[in-house]
């Protein structure tokens, strides 16, 4: 089938059955979730994960893509109206968004955020399709050693990039990998870490672990560290679409935001936060009126919001082409695949072409749905933001319990979610990364099975990994990713000492 035929088939699959209502529900939940400070896109997605189990794999992915896209926009609502970003990625939009609100232009700022975000999201999907298909053909040459080396490289890179301490990030990743070893070993049938419990034979429920590490731990943080609550503006808010002239005035910022979002998104570990700040700075550099930035510039809203949404397509490039998630949200997409019995990896496109094209079509549709849903849901977001924080926490915890229970009608699942919530809370307190653990959880099966398969091919010889050029290069890059933070640390220490000597 040609590319276009695949895409058309993807569109018809995406809208079939409950497709459209599920997409609307996903975007609506994502927007509301994103608007609640503390509920990042990844948390909103992990909360939605148990509800996707009754859907087929493609519809589940499209729903999660909707949550992701919705959360990207939702984060900007409190940023513009309350000077408090709902998601970290919306932080850059508050500089000018809140200034515009003070000037009585909140509706316009919300409109620019919504329209430019949609433009960024749509362009990023086009680029995603343009990159994933050729990359997917290249990775067909990969064997088990290359896949193992690739997964290891991705995990090391992500563990290193997303954390304050590389060692703690790495340990978190190892912990996530370790969690995948619980249960019956699929190759030999041996029992591993089941502690005599038959409930653990099939391994840990990935949804419960993920919901625990992301969502329950976040709720525990909010309960154990109650913070000051920002005032929600009284009265109603609405969204005003930018006119064509206004859109023309922000085209440069939108273009900058799209390019930055895509480039930053493709880099594993880099995410919406980095992209929106880089886009804001670049847009100011390229703007004809840089003096207006920080004082209520429409471009200052357009650039970070476009980048924030364009990251989604960029993030999915390594995720779909190589099986390496570019961010936590992408890792949750891969987890949804695992839940539906699909092993993520470099062969996803070749083995599940229809699924990937349905996701492409779904991404286009959810980005288009952002505008009508975003318009309608704004009032709902304000209502939720006005709710008492304890009510929100209680509602989310009850939702987690029944959501994880409903997956298998099994009480062990919410217990696991609570256990891993406590573990995730402890990890956060001590500076570890629950996100790296989740990445390990998603990549664990791939890493171990490909390692063992490689050694089976080589009759137990480890030289197979260095004898094959692609895996050798990938392993060298992995080593570099491990050593780089140490080298940088020693260099910065030397600089500090030199500066101290110079001062004394």
């Amino acid at each position: 089938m040609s590319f276009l035929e695949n895409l058309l088939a993807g569109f018809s699959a995406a809208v079939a059955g409950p497709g459209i209502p599920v997409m609307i529900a996903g975007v609506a939940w994502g927007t509301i979730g994103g608007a609640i400070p503390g509920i990042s896109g990844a948390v909103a997605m992990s909360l939605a994960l148990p509800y996707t189990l009754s859907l087929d794999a493609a519809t589940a992915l499209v729903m999660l893509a909707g949550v992701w896209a919705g959360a990207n926009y939702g984060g900007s609502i409190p940023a513009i109206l309350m000077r408090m970003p709902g998601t970290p990625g919306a932080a850059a939009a508050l500089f000018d968004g809140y200034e515009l609100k003070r000037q009585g232009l909140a509706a316009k700022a919300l409109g620019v955020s919504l329209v430019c975000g949609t433009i960024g999201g749509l362009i990023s999907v086009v680029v995603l399709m343009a990159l994933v298909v050729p990359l997917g053909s290249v990775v067909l040459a990969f064997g088990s050693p290359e896949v193992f080396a690739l997964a290891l490289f991705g995990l090391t890179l992500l563990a290193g990039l997303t954390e304050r301490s590389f060692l703690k990030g790495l340990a978190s990743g190892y912990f996530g990998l370790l969690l995948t070893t619980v249960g019956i070993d699929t190759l030999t049938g041996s029992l591993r870490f089941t502690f005599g419990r038959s409930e653990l034979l099939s391994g840990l429920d990935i949804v419960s672990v993920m919901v625990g590490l992301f969502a329950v731990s976040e709720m525990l943080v909010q309960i154990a560290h109650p913070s000051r609550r920002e005032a929600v503006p009284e009265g109603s808010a609405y969204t005003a679409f930018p006119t064509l002239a206004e859109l023309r005035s922000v085209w440069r910022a939108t273009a900058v935001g799209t390019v930055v979002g895509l480039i930053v998104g493709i880099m594993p570990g880099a995410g919406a936060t980095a992209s929106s700040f880089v886009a804001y700075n670049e847009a100011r550099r390229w703007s004809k009126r840089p003096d207006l930035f920080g004082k209520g510039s429409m471009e200052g809203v357009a650039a970070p919001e476009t980048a924030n949404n364009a990251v989604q397509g960029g993030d999915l490039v390594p995720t779909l082409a190589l099986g390496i998630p570019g961010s936590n949200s992408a890792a949750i997409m891969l987890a949804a695949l695992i839940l539906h019995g699909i092993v993520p990896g470099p062969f996803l496109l070749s083995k599940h072409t229809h699924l990937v094209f349905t996701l492409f079509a779904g991404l286009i549709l959810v980005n288009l749905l952002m505008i009508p849903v975003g318009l309608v849901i704004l009032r709902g977001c304000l209502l939720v933001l006005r709710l008492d924080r304890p009510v929100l926490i209680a509602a989310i915890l009850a939702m987690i319990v029944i959501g994880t229970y409903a997956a298998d009608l099994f009480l062990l699942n919410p217990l696991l979610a609570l256990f891993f919530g406590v573990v995730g809370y402890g990890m956060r307190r001590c500076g570890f990364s629950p996100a790296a653990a989740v990445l390990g959880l998603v990549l664990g099966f791939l890493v171990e099975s490909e390692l063992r398969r490689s050694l089976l091919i080589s009759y137990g010889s480890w030289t197979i990994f260095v004898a094959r050029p692609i895996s050798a290069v990938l392993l060298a890059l992995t080593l570099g990713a491990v050593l780089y933070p140490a080298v940088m640390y020693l260099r910065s220490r030397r600089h500090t000492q030199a500066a101290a000597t110079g001062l004394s």
Partner: protein
Amino acid sequence: MNAPTRPLRELPVAAFLVAFGSLVVAGARNIPSGVPTDPLGPRAFPMALGAGIACCGALLAAATALFRGQTVRTGILADADPDDEAAPGPFSPGRLIAAVGVTLGYLAAFEPVGYLITTPLYVIAILLIHGGAARRSLWLAPTLITAALYAVFRFGLLIPVPVGLLERLLPR
């Protein structure tokens, strides 16, 4: 951005990593080793991970001891941790323990007592533990949350929720 210093409180964390990694290695020794058709076997991977975690702990301890008081490079990017952005308030261990305890109790009663009885009580308990909720929330929120989730699962997703003590009154 000010670079944080590496405080001595990292030492117990490092010790925990070493102990946990060693426990994993010890536990993995009970797993059978490789066979001709699977030279690595099911034991090696968890053992390597345990060793890796222990090594991370040892390196962290060494770095803490060697570079105490020195500045530490911060990570380049922090997309994941919402608490980084939210500037959490002061730690209240009582609330944390109470919330975990109440959730455990809720789970214990979930099936035998039933969703419709336990959920409102759980919501009230969380509201009281957190504090700061308006008085009307104490009766309105439990009712609305319980009813909304029940409707979503029972009638929307067609998933049976535990009826417990209300078995005779409600359809399963």
